[in-house]
């Protein structure tokens, strides 16, 4: 971003500047297609000065993120189920913990289902998060059927009058069809038990990852109808530029971002702030 800031300080928009811009965008994981599209649009519009360029870039990215509902779909008067989905190690379990804490702060009463029964010590990990944020975790033992855990957790949520059930699922490659089936089953269990499906199926995306994220979203979306994304690890040097492609192609809003490993390191997604991390304000 600092480099882009410097680029935007130049007064003339010429081929050199556009090359630099291309480099910046590709290095932010925006992908070649979107980058090319933006650059050729700049040429087409014959943008010549950098203030104008800055505005154009901001608005271009803004237009991609616009018209989507970034709010969480949680109703006060019923049990809402929120399922966290994604490839291995993206931050699902930590996000469940942080989000439970966040919801408590808003006055909801959350409860957690430990539906990753596969990974070593996944259950212990989510239980520690539960203790940390003072939210009950419903778990069975390692190897149990995740659908059964979710069923159990719904019963528990009802019995204890909870209104949000957060489901931590095992990390899985989108290329493994049997594991994709398992996600569908979790959705079916919710639907059957409650009479309605999960309020949110959130895909958890690690900002460090590159273009493969598009394939991940595509496959998971086909399987369970994703309602949103969580972008994690934004405290690193990666910006998560692939998100623009995700939003554009699949109309899936980013709902939450995480910026660290602490309990409070979760925020709702702010499109303007996000775009500013790509297209900084130019201070002259």
């Amino acid at each position, binding site marked *: 971003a600092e480099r882009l800031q410097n680029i935007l300080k130049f007064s003339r928009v010429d081929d050199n500047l556009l090359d630099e811009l291309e*480099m910046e965008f590709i290095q932010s994981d925006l992908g*070649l297609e979107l980058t090319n599209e933006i650059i050729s649009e700049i040429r087409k519009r014959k943008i010549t000065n950098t203030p104008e360029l800055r505005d154009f870039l901001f608005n271009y990215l803004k237009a991609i993120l616009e018209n989507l509902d970034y709010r969480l779909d949680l109703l006060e008067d019923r049990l809402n189920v929120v399922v966290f989905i994604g490839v291995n190690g993206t*931050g699902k379990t930590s996000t469940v913990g942080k989000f439970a804490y966040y919801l408590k702060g808003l006055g909801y009463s959350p409860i957690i289902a430990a539906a990753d029964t596969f990974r070593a010590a996944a259950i212990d990990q989510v239980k*520690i998060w539960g203790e940390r944020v003072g939210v009950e975790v419903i778990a069975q033992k390692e190897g149990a059927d995740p659908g059964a855990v979710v069923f159990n957790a719904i019963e528990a949520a009802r019995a204890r009058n909870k209104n949000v059930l957060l489901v931590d699922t095992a990390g899985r490659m989108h290329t493994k069809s049997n594991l994709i089936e398992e996600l569908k089953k979790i959705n079916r269990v919710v639907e059957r038990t409650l009479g309605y499906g999960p309020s949110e199926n959130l895909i958890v995306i690690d900002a*460090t990852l*590159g*273009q*493969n994220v598009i394939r991940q979203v595509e496959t998971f979306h086909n399987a369970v109808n994703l309602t949103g994304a969580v972008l994690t690890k934004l405290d690193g040097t990666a910006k998560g530029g692939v998100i623009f492609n995700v939003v554009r192609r699949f109309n899936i809003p980013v709902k939450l971002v995480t910026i660290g490993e602490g309990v409070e390191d979760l925020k709702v997604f702010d499109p303007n702030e996000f775009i500013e991390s790509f297209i900084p304000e130019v201070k002259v």
Partner: protein
Amino acid sequence: MFENLTSRLQEVFKKLRGKGKLTEKDIEEALREVRQALLEADAHYKVVKELLNNVKAKALQEDVLKSVTPAEQIIRILYYELLNILGGEKADLNLGSKKPGIILVVGLQGSGKTTTCAKLAYKLAQEQRRVLLVGADTFRPAAGKQLQILAEKIKVPVYVDGKGPFEIIDGALEVAKEKLSDVMIVDTTGRLHIDEEMMNELNELNKRYNPSEILLVVDGMTGQDAVNIAEKFNEKLPLTGVILTKMDGDARGGAALSVKAITGKPIKFIGVGEKIEDLEYFYPDRLASRILGMGDLASLVERI
């Protein structure tokens, strides 16, 4: 998308030929297709740029344009350039001259360190080495427990007691001496490459214990940021190798190219699944094919 880069290149050259003799500019035109393939595979912008410069220089040198099959010739040159970056010395583990040798496993959060430690332990145990797994991550919830469960599965002893990494490794060294272990595999806390304090800790660990291997674990799905990660870890630590994880998905793995180009350190293994035995030796030719989105490039190139 790039199921066949050769045929795309052929198409480009066919079009260009229609205009008469092929020129240097035409190589550039063709290399744009290659660039696209590499960038879509997440290879880093600058790494790609340099690679393509080399390919172009070689193509001109070899007078590729006079060939009846310029597309194939470019693929061949490209393939060897990729191997040139990805390949290198045979990458077995160095267990050190003193016992126990220490293998320090480092990397970003969630990259696959703990799982990889267990996989490495299993591999060495199968080679009749006496291994001690050491869980020096006291930060991530249940990190020690995770390693203990994995260790139990493969029946390798594990040590996780202590408040911080130094205390744990000191304790583990005692145990390793008692057990006459050949090697300790040390799992560390995931950390960001820009976290000064945590990076300094690794530097201290290196100074104090002088490991025979420091392995950087990198998620094979990483995007352009791979360069920043590799740069910072390599700056702070004398890395001896890289392990690329989660290669069982359909990521094209261009990050590997970035990491290798930046660090020059061999990619020793790739992780291809969550199970203990899902660790493979790294074959540069296979990754080159994968990055370009093509089948078996090695045998294709042989036929050219």
